[in-house]
């Protein structure tokens, strides 16, 4: 890993990098690698029951009747619940109230739940499921968005199959195409992707004496769960407390669906007044959890003969699945990022989100951006090839810089590291050498290198601004140790470590003195969801806000003791310094406690303003953006069509890297998931039925399939981030697929416009090209 210093964008205050900016050991690492960390399944309480779901076998059907009496009579069964027995509202939709928690009149996909069982053991619960009789009347379904938009198509919901249409109108595309010397139009297609977090969704719900619920769960967004459960049980929010258990990965997949699972378990706990544990099997999780939206993207781009892009007309058709969930927000992101990190004068984007009887799609690392990035980065590469330009040159010519205007008309006033990621990455991977190298390694093997770039709005942007506040609560204990409660969650991305680093840095303490508490809705105000690469910035700023208040008191007392002015007081190496004089941090804390100085404070941070005009798609869509460039080197076996990604060089502008080690980990992980998206992963649903129901058929890369990854950190600091940070969680997965596709093109001359680029598809294309070339030249 190489570390590059801050350079582009505005320079924030220079600070002493005692801990922030240095590779830190994960604060949660030891417990995880030694197996001491307790996940929900490790918890278990005396007398708890096991909850199970009865899922629909049909993608679309009316429910004519449900008979639960036999199941209820089975010994060991404590409760059987259907939609009729819900104390609150039978509703779990996050954005729109169109998703019943339990299906009552009809089922809309094969993951819809019609009944719940609580029993004293898991096998008993499973047996009880078999005894529930549901009378279904299958309905014709609709499984592709193209069909769903046709007039006589079956309706998933009464209001029609078009959920949302988002637009950008900038300049005059017709005029732009008129001025263009070259116009290309292409269709790109992407698939459904499953998160495959290590730990499936699970929860343990314990009813309390006063009827309130304590929920321990493997989740990403405790405040969503709190609201969802309160709504279904008809409880005030104050009576639902959600504590995040150690969580084994999420990637967006634990954003919305866990609210449903926790609500199921809570209903059963409420009914039986017993603790209920519900942990999904991998097969249940695959069937029930959300996926990355498959999209069909029709891209038309016009440019001058010198490769200056003049206009882009983009139509995005996305399969929502059976329920909206958070799709409107996902598609907002697809829309804003549809043109990629380029300054284009004339832009027209139309994004359509369409209901089908497929498993609902939702949040997944990148949140609607990887799909459009596959399209724009393939398109720009195709344009470069037509113009006989170097793919880097066309990107540099059109890429965003300070002062550029995005497709939404936002003028970028700070922190644009785009060009730096391109240039540094290009140098590190030895682009020119590799581009010119002999691509033929053997009669049947070819090598190639490709590039892809991206930008990504940090946090929720205009569409989620109302959720974009975050809290933290900090307490300095009598012994000088510090505990911090934040509203963001740790799901493996390293959030706790960066927050601990910021506290340590700010108070001049070693990392060991800082304890980040499990995220608990009972301890921190609603901080919105842990998504959108926002935790470092949002929980970080809230923590710094709380620290500011505590430090003010510490400085005042220190100033008094040292007889200097408070502004002169600094904190370093467990010492409190004031000019020549000093005292130890512990002495100062002792003094505070003796004088009853309150060393606890709550912090709060709200997103800088954002805007988006629904009619024109113009506005400051996100308050700041991250940028990245990846270079993929591949080897293609022409006989089988199999692609091995040998190496990826990934340069990412993340603002200040609080923990460079953590940033590298995120980039490596994102690249690996991106390679899976490019080549392997495809969650196939045919006529509403899942064809890849387990991990033997839904395959992700193993450690033998992943490339060497070189990470380059670019730090174009952001004035609104803590220490200048922007966030990195999602960015690294975004450009990988197109970099791989572009490398395959370089290696073979074959352009694949559809993901994943599986060996069979590529072999077919190779054969077609060979026969086109009269027996080919590769042997």
């Amino acid at each position, binding site marked *: 890993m190489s570390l590059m210093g801050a350079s582009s964008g505005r320079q924030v205050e220079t600070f002493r990098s005692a801990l922030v900016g240095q590779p830190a050991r994960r604060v949660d690492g030891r417990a995880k690698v030694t197996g001491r960390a307790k996940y929900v399944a490790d918890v278990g309480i005396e007398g708890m029951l096991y909850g199970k779901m009865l899922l629909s076998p049909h993608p679309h059907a009316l429910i004519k009747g449900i008979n639960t009496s036999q199941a209820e009579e089975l010994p060991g069964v404590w409760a059987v619940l259907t939609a009729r027995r819900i104390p609150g509202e039978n509703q779990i939709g996050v954005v729109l109230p169109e998703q019943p928690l339990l299906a009552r009149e009809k089922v809309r996909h094969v993951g819809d739940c019609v009944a719940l069982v609580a029993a004293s053991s898991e096998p008993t619960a499973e047996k009880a499921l078999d005894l529930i009789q549901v009378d279904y009347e299958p309905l014709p379904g609709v499984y592709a968005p193209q069909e769903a938009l046709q007039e006589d198509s079956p309706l998933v919901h009464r209001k029609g199959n078009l959920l949302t249409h988002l637009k950008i109108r900038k300049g005059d595309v017709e005029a732009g195409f008129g001025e263009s010397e070259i116009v290309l139009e292409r269709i790109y297609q992407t698939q459904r992707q499953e998160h495959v977090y290590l730990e499936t969704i699970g929860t343990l719900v314990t009813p309390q004496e006063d009827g309130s619920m304590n929920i321990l769960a493997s989740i990403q967004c405790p405040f969503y769960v709190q609201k969802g459960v309160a709504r279904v049980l008809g409880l005030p929010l104050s009576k639902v407390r959600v504590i995040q258990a150690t969580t084994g990965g999420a990637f967006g997949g634990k954003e919305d669906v866990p609210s449903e699972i926790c609500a199921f378990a809570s209903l059963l706990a409420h009914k039986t007044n017993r603790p209920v544990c519900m942990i999904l099997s991998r097969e249940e999780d695959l069937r029930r959890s959300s996926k990355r939206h498959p999209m069909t993207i029709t891209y038309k781009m016009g440019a001058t003969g010198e490769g200056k892009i003049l206009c882009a007309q983009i139509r995005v058709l996305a399969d929502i699945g059976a329920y909206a969930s958070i799709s409107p927000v996902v598609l907002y992101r697809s829309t804003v990022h549809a043109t990629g990190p380029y300054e284009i004068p004339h832009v027209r984007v139309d994004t359509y989100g369409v209901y089908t009887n497929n498993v609902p799609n939702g949040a997944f690392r990148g949140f609607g951006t990887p799909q459009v990035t596959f399209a724009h980065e393939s398109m720009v590469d195709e344009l470069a090839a037509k113009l006989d330009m170097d793919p880097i040159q066309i990107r540099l010519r059109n890429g965003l810089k300070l002062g550029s205007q995005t497709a939404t008309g936002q003028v970028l006033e700070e922190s644009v590291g785009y060009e730096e990621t391109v240039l540094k990455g290009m140098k590190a991977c030895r682009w020119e050498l590799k581009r010119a190298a002999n691509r033929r390694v053997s009669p049947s093997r070819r090598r190639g290198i490709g590039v892809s770039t991206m930008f990504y709005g940090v946090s929720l942007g205009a569409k989620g601004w109302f959720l974009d506040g975050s809290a933290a609560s900090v307490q300095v204990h009598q012994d000088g140790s510090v505990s911090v409660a934040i509203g963001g969650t740790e799901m493996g991305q390293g959030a706790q470590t960066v927050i601990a680093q910021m506290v340590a840095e700010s108070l001049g303490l070693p990392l060991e003195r800082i304890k980040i508490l499990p995220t608990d809705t009972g301890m921190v105000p609603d901080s919105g969801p842990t998504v959108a690469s926002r935790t470092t910035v949002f929980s970080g700023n809230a923590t710094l806000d709380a620290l500011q208040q505590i430090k003010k008191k510490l400085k005042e007392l220190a100033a008094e003791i040292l007889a200097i002015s408070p502004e002169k007081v600094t904190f370093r190496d467990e010492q409190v310094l004031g000019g020549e004089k000093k005292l130890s941090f512990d002495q100062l804390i002792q003094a505070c406690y003796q004088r009853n100085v309150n060393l606890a404070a709550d912090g709060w941070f709200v997103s800088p303003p954002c805007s988006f005009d629904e009619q024109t798609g113009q506005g400051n869509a996100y308050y700041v953006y991250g940028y990245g460039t990846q270079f993929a080197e591949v080897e293609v*076996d022409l006989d*089988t069509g*199999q692609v091995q990604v040998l190496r990826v060089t990934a340069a990412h502008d993340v603002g200040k890297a609080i923990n460079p080690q953590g940033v590298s980990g995120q980039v490596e992980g994102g690249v690996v998931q991106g390679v899976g998206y490019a080549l*392997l992963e495809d969650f196939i649903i045919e006529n509403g039925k899942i*064809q890849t129901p387990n991990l033997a058929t839904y*395959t992700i890369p193993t450690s033998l399939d992943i490339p060497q990854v070189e990470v380059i950190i670019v730090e174009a600091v952001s004035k609104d981030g803590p220490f200048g940070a922007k966030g990195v969680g999602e960015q690294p997965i975004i450009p990988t697929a197109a970099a791989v596709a572009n490398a395959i093109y370089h290696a073979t001359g074959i352009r694949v416009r559809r993901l994943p680029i*599986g060996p*069979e598809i590529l*072999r077919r294309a190779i054969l077609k090209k060979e026969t086109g070339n009269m027996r080919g030249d590769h042997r």
Partner: protein
Amino acid sequence: MDVFRYLAPESVEETLQLLDEGAGGVKVLAGGTDLLVQMKERGLRPGLVLDVAGLHELRGIRMEGKYVWIGPLTTHWDLAHSALIREHGLALAQGASKVGSPQIRHRGTIGGNIANASPAADTVPPLVVLEAEVELRSLNGSHWLPVESLMEGPSRTALRPKELITGVRFPHRAPGSRSQYEKFGSRQALSIAVASVAVAAVQEKGRFARVRIALGSVSPTVVRATRVEEILTGEALGEDLIAQATASVAQQCRPIDDVRGSAWYRCQLVEALLARILLCWGEEWMAG
């Protein structure tokens, strides 16, 4: 998974006795990497599970007369790392080394792989080309049967419910003979073969004296490519011969379409894998 009875017999005799008494409702448990999946996920409900893992006499690799003998409980890991196997049946070591992941290779056994009779089983094509046999034993006695004749269909074998596999053997490597196994899976580990090819051949004076080819995952069972064997026998390896052989191998396949690959693609793959083996041999033969 339902409740079932579990016994761990202490001898082969006792195992055979229990198999005999239990009629059809008994299942032998070796590494459990197939059986437990079938019980947990495919509704297999044996009344009695016989754990034979403790029968040490059924484990090990050794020379026995003109054969290499392998105990059915020998793990894929041990097969892949055995000098004896590498020397006499390289294809088998290669097949075993491509099974699942290190965890699966440490648990899964050759006996289980054979008895499970998947057309994608990675040790079966090598065993077929190495002319391996299995020893089937019951209270009534024992007999050796070629692995090739054991396979009757996907998950169907000539193994009777009362029989136990008590040995696997194949002849020593003859002078001038060699074998090789190639597997294609969607990824580098933990993948079920989309297609596989094993070849064993004896070379005399630069020509194929004898050759056996077996194909995996392209038919209901592992199958021999006899037509291709005929094309190669008596001939010297060269580009034309390789082209002729690969062009006719697909005719010997009856593959299916599934999520792992279409029938068409599986045929493409056996051609590619066969070509890979023959090209590699061809280069070496020509070199010396």
